[in-house]
């Protein structure tokens, strides 16, 4: 599904990713871990096409297409979803309107009809249960005045409605208390299907107690320095990042 080769990227003339190789197949959950400043979030942003980042080299193929040639909205329409570390506020635009507009764009790209507003309401209310969100949140402005936990849940709600092929969760666990963490993780797990894949970017192992990865990659200094199964995360939790860095 996703094939990243020798990817180099940076921001403001500073190279952050110095050659990333990663292959993600349908049905897999990959965890990308690493210390602060290792390039985890940069990887997530570059895959989503954030124009603030510049790609310096390498290639990314997604479902047979050159991902780097696509606009961010085209990537989204083809099924790439980024759950933001810092979800953005859009005052005055209701959650419902935002989400329905987004869903319709994605549906259009898939050759589907626009969704009927009532049908949409049914769908979104069903998905809201998944993340234990109050339906009243639909009429509030996108992320405006939401607590940290509400914002993260709202990201997962969007993901649940848009049903992406490849979901990238960027530090979704940061700022969440244990209950919110459990709700968010369960939401992600229930959305898992054999034909979609997830990349979980996280600093801490605790999220991986709930979202169990098939592969764990350790990113440091802009490179993947170690890959392994889920046990690698536990080892990191116990021994810290220095151990892998020294070994690398």
């Amino acid at each position, binding site marked *: 599904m996703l094939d990243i080769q020798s990817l180099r990227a940076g921001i403001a003339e500073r190279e952050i990713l110095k050659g990333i190789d990663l292959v993600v197949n349908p049905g897999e959950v990959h965890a990308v871990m690493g210390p602060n400043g290792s390039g985890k979030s940069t990887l997530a942003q570059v895959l989503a096409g954030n*124009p603030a980042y510049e790609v310096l080299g390498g290639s990314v193929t997604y479902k047979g297409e050159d991902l780097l040639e696509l606009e961010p909205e085209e990537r989204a329409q083809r099924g790439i979803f980024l759950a933001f570390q810092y979800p953005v506020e*859009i005052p005055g635009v209701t959650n419902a309107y935002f989400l329905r*507009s*987004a869903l319709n*764009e994605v549906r259009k790209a898939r050759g589907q009809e626009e969704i009927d507003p009532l049908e949409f309401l049914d769908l979104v209310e069903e998905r809201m249960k998944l993340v234990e969100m109050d339906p009243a949140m639909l009429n509030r402005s*996108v992320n405006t005045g939401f607590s940290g936990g509400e914002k993260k849940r709202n990201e997962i709600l969007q993901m649940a409605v848009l049903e992406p092929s490849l979901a990238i969760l960027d530090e979704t666990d940061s700022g969440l208390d244990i209950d919110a963490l459990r709700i968010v993780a369960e939401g992600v797990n229930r959305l898992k299907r054999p034909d979609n894949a997830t990349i979980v970017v996280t600093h801490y192992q605790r999220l991986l107690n709930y979202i169990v990865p098939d592969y764990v990659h350790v990113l440091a200094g802009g490179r993947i320095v170690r890959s392994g199964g889920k046990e690698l995360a536990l080892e990191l939790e116990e021994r810290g990042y220095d151990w892998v860095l020294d070994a690398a």
Partner: protein
Amino acid sequence: MSTAIESLVNREYQYGFVTDVDSDVVPPGLSEEVIRTISAKKNEPEWLLDWRLKAYRRWLTMKEPHWPNVQYEPIDYQAVSYYSAPKSVKPLQSLDEVDPELLRTYEKLGISLTEQKMLSGVAVDAIFDSVSVGTTMRDELAKHGVIFCSFGEAVREHPELVKKYLGSVVPYSDNFFAALNSAVFSDGSFCYVPKGVKCPMELSTYFRINSADTGQFERTLIIADEAATVSYLEGCTAPKRSTNQLHAAVVELVALEGATVKYSTVQNWYAGDENGVGGIYNFVTKRGKCAGANSKISWTQVETGSAITWKYPSVILQGDNSVGEFYSVAVVNNRQQADTGTKMIHIGKNTKSTIVSKGISAGYGQNSYRGKVQVLPKADGARNYTQCDSMLIGNRCGAHTFPYIEVENNTATVEHEASTSKIGEDQIFYCKQRGLSAEQAVSMIVSGFCREVFQELPMEFAVEAQQLLGITLEGSVG
């Protein structure tokens, strides 16, 4: 600014076409003679001509105001033609007699004047250059005793009403442009809603400037008698021309005891090109008077067009417990300049006013909010709430705020809130990551910013305004 915030402003102005009709144009220049000519063309009574002449003489003693925060080359008032009418317009028996070319013009603008095609619920008076070409739904309105006609007709058919209220809110001596308008105004809309009547449909005037080098000086007078209610919409467009054209209108609203007048404008005059060549100078005086107790006047405006806008729809809160509202969205792009806001004059007891102003600046546009809240000594318990928000798109535009607050009664409560924000690249990227295009993203963010104002617009207009905003800003994000 990145690619995302530079290319959303510059779609072609879609109402920039010119209609080819034979017009009766008074040669450029202004003199008592010209005023007499205009008055004679309209077969006006002596009292009205006298009023015009008084206004003209007053105007000669006045100076064009230069306090607004806008810049333009001096206007040569002798180079403007003060009257232009399509030759085909004669007193019409029915709308079927309207020149088909004019009907087509309005069709192109999305306004249907032919009764059978008309959407129910809106009566339209169409003003083409200096004259009204037709007013729809009149029979239906007449059943309720509502008078809705062109100003010229009102002078002929209802002189007592016109005489009583003309200049009662905006006297001819009020300001330079109001005096000019009073001297040369050609047509406009007139509306009277009798006691206790709730006007059964939205009333609407659609203004179109067509002729070159012609000013449009229309005058609108709306009177809601005791306990009457009326909602009024105004739309405006003009052809693209490389010279500036002057539009100096006057709108007067009168609300008697317990009456409500709601006046909504979607102003889309030609704004000039991206270098600031051409466009309408929109120098307009709009004012309402809450003459009776418990009356209410509400202004809602969406200003997207014009090269320069100078406009302060105001409310004189004379009756006790009267309410004044001003909801405004003003958008400037390219080289557009707007100096707009409101005045709320609290005279009566427990009068209340609300001001919500949203200014959006893109390109090299300069947007100023200018507002005055005045509480006079007898206005016990007066309250005002002002919210004034500015949004910047790109980094070459400007937003300015000039609030004036004068309180002479210590029981008054006056609140003022202001904010300035910028459309963030992060907001646009967030929307794009969810599958929306940059255009959709900006239009959504801007609509969200303007939501409190759009909520005040009648349904048909809210949709139009939202689309217009998207078009106006297209190209400001890239």
